[in-house]
């Protein structure tokens, strides 16, 4: 099935810009990370002062990373974070999408715009904003709570993780809600009317007709959220200014970043980046095969 010559030339001409850049920005970095993760710098001489050279290290960087308690703890932390934050956000987004369906068009578009607004606020700026709302002395929330006898510490050892979760919920609930709304709108109207005619009330239609039909949207949002959670960086990085409990390896990404730029260990950082990509792929595909296994 060879293409006519003119079409083949056009396919190459039109496809080249994207695929060349894709090779530069996606394929090459992955190959580079894999290569670098297999090397290490070896120092020679007394105290390593005799110079250094780069040698093949096998899988020792991976071994090192996976035996680093701090690095493993960072995965435990984002896992815990994800188990709580992702369901809370997706359930909230779903509930909001369904509630909007019950309103008149004018009101639903007003609320939809309000909920979607935070998506336009960059993650680091959202973190700066919430950061101010977490800092005693600046935060009006803390002072209001103080007046009624509650004195929360949003930046405490245990609390700060959930303060970060709140920022992520604030940023992305509206975005996920919009994906779900889009799919709700695509449900044929007669399907809903047929259910109504059969005597199904609002709750029954929502639960038994609409919910199963928006499954693809829910799967999409969960997969994106899982990948996003693993990459957690901006929010804790910004809150470092205010909370001493956010360490230099608080999340896998912060750990890899500091490994590369603070400790200057590019090889270990590469191994950590590869591990991150592998874990993200494993979790996404794991989740996808889990939900696709069930009979339709």
């Amino acid at each position, binding site marked *: 099935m060879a293409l006519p010559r003119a079409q083949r030339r056009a396919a190459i001409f039109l496809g080249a810009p*994207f695929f060349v850049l894709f090779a530069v920005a996606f394929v090459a970095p992955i190959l580079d990370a894999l290569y670098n993760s297999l090397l290490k710098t070896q120092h020679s001489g007394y105290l390593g002062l005799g110079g250094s050279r780069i040698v093949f290290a096998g899988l020792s960087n991976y071994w090192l990373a996976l035996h680093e308690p701090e690095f493993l703890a960072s995965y435990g932390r984002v896992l815990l974070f994800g188990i709580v934050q992702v369901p809370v956000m997706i359930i909230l987004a779903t509930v909001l999408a369904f509630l909007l369906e*019950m309103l008149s068009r004018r009101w639903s578009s007003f609320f*939809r*715009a309000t909920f979607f607004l935070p998506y336009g606020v960059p993650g680091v700026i959202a973190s700066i904003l919430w950061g101010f709302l977490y800092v005693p002395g600046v935060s009006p929330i803390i002072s209001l709570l103080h007046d009624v006898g509650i004195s929360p510490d949003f930046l405490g050892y245990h609390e700060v993780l959930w303060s970060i979760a709140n920022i992520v919920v604030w940023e992305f609930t509206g975005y996920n809600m919009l994906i779900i709304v889009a799919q709700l709108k*695509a449900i044929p109207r007669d399907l809903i009317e047929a259910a109504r005619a059969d005597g199904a009330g*609002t709750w029954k239609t929502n639960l038994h007709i609409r919910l199963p039909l928006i499954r693809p949207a829910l799967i999409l949002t969960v997969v994106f959220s899982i990948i996003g959670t693993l990459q957690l960086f901006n929010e804790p990085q910004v809150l470092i200014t205010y909370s001493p409990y956010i360490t230099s390896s608080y999340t896998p*990404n912060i750990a890899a970043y500091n490994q590369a730029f603070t400790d200057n260990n590019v090889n270990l950082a590469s191994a950590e*980046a590869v591990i991150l990509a592998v874990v*993200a792929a494993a979790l996404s595909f794991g989740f996808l095969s889990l939900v696709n296994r069930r009979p339709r």
Partner: protein
Amino acid sequence: MRAVTRSRPAVLPGRAAGRSAGVRETGTAGPAGPRNRATRIVVVGVLVVVAIYFLVPVYWLIVASTKSPAGIYGSQGFLFSNPMFATNMVQVFTYDGDIYTRWLVNTVLYAGVGAVLATLFAAAAGYVLAKYEFRGRRALFNLVLAGVLVPATALALPMYQLFASVNLTNTYWAVLIPGMVSPFGVYLCRIYAEAAVPDTVLEAARIDGSGEVRIFFRVVLRILTPVLVTVFLFQFVGIWNNYFLPLVMLSSNSLYPITLGLTTWQAGSIRVPELLQTTIGGALVSVIPLAVAMIVLQRFWQGGLTEGAVKQ
């Protein structure tokens, strides 16, 4: 805000508006009746509470941007006191030369140029993957899909190494080049092109003697317009919001985008009270344009997202 929402249709190009409106008709109208009125009050009540949650930080930002550093610490944060908005804005735009303006221009440049080119390239690649049958097409598309799922931050560190080896780090290119690539855009464009570009139209254009590339620019791009708007918006916001890549790539603050610049101010604000004001004022200025765009262009997101989500 509602005035903005209502004026939306005026700015929409015909096709996308018609399509979205058509989709919307299929939604069911809210039920009426006495029992349902109580339900609706509860529903609206819940939505209002949630809306307050989403608006509180932005409201606080507006109030705080009118205060002096002493006022930020010394007065109730949700109430205005001694407004000095103009003074604060002058401070934002004049602090450290006019570095904030520089950051603003950089951000518009990174996001604007990056998103326009990313959209064009994604449209071309998506069209090729949808409409030209060649060996390896399936494999190429799967490679692109894998690209969608790779964490961007896992790519940034090795990309730094690569760019450093050709002296591209700490240049505009270091942020621009990765911004021109949108695998998700290719994914959306392929799906859309497959469904929306009829083979008969392509055949007719070929019989008329149009060249292949000309067909793409004259015929296909026009048909793809709705999804192109979505791809552009995604990429624009993605680059505008990006922090990790510029943080890794850039070291001179004259190249910074707003996100990176503001975090340097924020980190310094603990020691320098002036920076507290510039951080808050700068955050407000940067939030406004995108928040307005977000509301005005809302239905475009929805249109494109349907393509991606429904046809999984």
